[in-house]
């Protein structure tokens, strides 16, 4: 029994301890939970603060970056202006020293001549440095423009080689050149500059060695281009030196500048120019054995503005009565385009001789008008090339020149010779001779329904009219900036700008101009008195769609085009 009591007491005690323990644990858990909550809170607070700090810092960094970008632009702008200012007095130093040296030589004061020669040389050296800095800062300020033209690769290379040969031979080097013939379209000045930099570098770091230049057309990642390679047997570069090869103001090491001269800008500029031309430049080198620089430039596509084919806005029979105008002067091109466009010709424009020859082959125009005085390939060379090519030999050419050189022109195969300024009458007389059957009466159809406008086009084209189409009033007004139709067929219900509004706008635009532009309204709408009032005086005729008779409409068009539309006594806007 006692045992039982004792056991019971033990158990009770144990139970009590356990309870106590549980209570302790519970309290501990509560405390922990409390602590957790506090920590969580603290963490949340910290997190919030962190986010605020991060966004604050980000804003600061963004501001700093913007400021840095702006500062860099300002710096480049400053350098560009500065370089420009520096060159003006330098101009005088170089010019006067050269002139005085010549005078001193003539007067046999040789000691002075030599010293003046040194000033002149130093001046020219300073000029190249300034030009380099100017180039680099212009590129960085985004002020370097591309001027694309088509050039002959071998002649371009020959040009650079001639300039650079004295530099290369100075150190007893031999230059070999290998060029694949062909033309490419690029910025000639910039390509020349890249090649000059690479070749003069090769010459600078090689002595009594050989330098080779190869240029070949090829393809890279499906893009056709030209690969230029300059290889020398000079001092070469270590890997470390190669690492900052294309960085501005960094030469292999600072002693290089003292020993070899230069700004250390040549390669940086070359790389940037390559990038501008959408190409790349790479270097490979073995220290002590020589370096190879490879430039790859893709052939750049023709730009729209270089060869425009207006006046055939719907791509239809473009070549039928095409006249090709070759002139380097944009104003002259514009003028001819307007003149010829009014005479019912499609006009193709070329801004250079090469472009002109290419377009002549491609378009087979009825007539070519060719300016004599052009930079690059002049009119005489273009004429000779056109007449030598069986594809283009039979196309009549009108030569246009500042001076009267008829006999030379005819001897070379020109059909006509006109002097600038070109008088309209004389040009038209020539046109009549060579493109006699051109269509003089363009008609503009303004209609949003394709089926109707196609049907009308077909009908009119069969009758020999030149047809232009616009799908609403707005597009028609745009088109009227460029072409001058003799008659308009107008739908009334159209999106964007309907026929009523178009008539109003046209009336505003033509206020005060002479000559008539008859309008025939073609509509499916029931015309109300109000409609009639709005159109009154500006529509020659209102025709109901679906009920008109083709023959009557054509007769009306012929009648209006024959000038009867100008007859004021004729009643306007009468019904069918």
């Amino acid at each position: 029994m006692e045992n039982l009591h004792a056991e019971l007491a033990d158990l009770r005690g144990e139970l009590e301890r356990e309870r106590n323990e549980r209570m302790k644990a519970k309290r501990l858990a509560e405390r922990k939970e409390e602590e957790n909550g506090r920590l969580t809170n603290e963490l949340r607070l910290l997190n919030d603060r962190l986010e605020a700090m991060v966004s604050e810092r980000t804003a600061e960094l963004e501001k700093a970056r913007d400021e840095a970008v702006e500062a860099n632009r300002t710096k480049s702008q400053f350098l560009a202006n500065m370089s420009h200012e520096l060159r003006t007095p330098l101009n005088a130093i170089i010019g006067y020293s050269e002139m005085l040296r010549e005078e001193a030589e003539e007067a046999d004061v040789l000691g002075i001549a030599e010293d003046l020669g040194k000033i002149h040389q130093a001046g020219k050296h300073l000029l190249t440095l300034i030009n380099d800095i100017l180039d680099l800062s212009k590129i960085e300020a985004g002020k370097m423009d591309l001027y694309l033209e088509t050039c002959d690769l071998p002649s371009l290379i020959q040009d650079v080689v001639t300039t650079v040969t004295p530099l290369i031979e100075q150190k007893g080097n031999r230059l070999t050149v290998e060029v694949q013939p062909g033309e490419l379209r690029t910025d000639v000045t910039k390509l020349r500059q890249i090649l000059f930099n690479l070749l003069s570098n090769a010459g600078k770091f090689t002595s009594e060695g050989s330098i080779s230049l190869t240029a070949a057309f090829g393809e890279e990642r499906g893009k056709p281009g030209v690969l230029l390679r300059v290889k020398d047997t000079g001092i070469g570069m270590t890997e470390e030196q190669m690492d900052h090869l294309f960085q501005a103001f960094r030469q292999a090491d600072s002693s290089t500048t003292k020993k070899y001269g230069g700004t250390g800008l040549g390669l940086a500029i070359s790389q940037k120019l390559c990038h501008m031309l959408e190409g790349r430049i790479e270097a490979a080198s073995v220290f002590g054995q020589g370096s190879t620089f490879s430039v790859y430039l893709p052939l750049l596509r023709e730009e729209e503005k270089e060869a425009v084919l207006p006046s055939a806005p719907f791509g239809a029979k473009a070549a039928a009565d095409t006249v090709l105008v070759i002139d380097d002067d944009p104003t002259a091109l514009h003028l001819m385009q307007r003149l010829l466009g009014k005479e019912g010709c499609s006009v193709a424009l070329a801004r250079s001789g090469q472009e002109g020859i290419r377009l002549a082959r491609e378009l087979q125009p009825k007539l070519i008008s060719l300016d004599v005085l052009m930079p690059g390939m002049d009119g005489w060379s273009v004429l000779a090339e056109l007449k030598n090519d069986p594809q283009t030999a039979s196309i009549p050419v009108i030569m246009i020149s500042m001076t009267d050189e008829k006999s030379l022109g005819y001897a070379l195969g020109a059909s006509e010779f006109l002097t600038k300024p070109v008088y309209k009458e004389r040009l038209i007389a020539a046109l009549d001779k060579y493109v006699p059957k051109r269509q003089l009466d363009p008609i503009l159809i303004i209609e949003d329904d394709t089926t109707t406008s196609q049907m009308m086009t077909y009908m009119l084209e069969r009758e020999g009219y030149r047809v232009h189409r616009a799908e609403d009033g707005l597009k028609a007004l745009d088109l009227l900036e460029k072409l001058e139709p003799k008659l308009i067929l107008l739908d009334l219900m159209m999106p964007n700008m309907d026929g009523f509004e178009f008539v109003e706008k046209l009336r505003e635009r033509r206020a005060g101009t002479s000559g008539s532009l008859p309008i025939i309204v073609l509509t499916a709408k029931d015309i109300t008195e109000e409609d009639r009032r709005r159109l009154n005086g500006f529509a020659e005729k209102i025709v109901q769609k679906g009920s008109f008779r083709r023959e009557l409409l054509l007769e009306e068009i012929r009648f209006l085009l024959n000038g009867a539309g100008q007859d004021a006594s004729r009643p306007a806007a009468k019904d069918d």
Partner: protein
Amino acid sequence: MAKILLVEDNELNRDMLSRRLQRKGFEVVMAIDGEKGVEAARTESPDLILMDMSLPVLDGWSATRALKAEERTRSIPIIALTAHAMASDREKALDAGCDDFDTKPVEWLRLLGKIEQHLNLSGSRA
């Protein structure tokens, strides 16, 4: 000997170029801005014009356009002098009707070559 009209606003450049041209035996007349340049071209009838492009009063491009629009002065060859590497200036000069261009500071022998070339050209075909 041929007469050259030099249109240049910078006094040093004008003095230097004119002296060098004279030493080569050219007769040199000068103008200090575009407007005076156009006037001088009319009254002096030079055989060739060297035209700076950034000129006061009337710039070189406008002056060239004016000269090329006039019957009397149209055939006089104009060599534009433009700053280095300004492809747009060069293009603008040719667009304005200049017959040729060269850079400033001038590369003397190259400029002389161009002058001779244009004088021969206009001489033989005039």
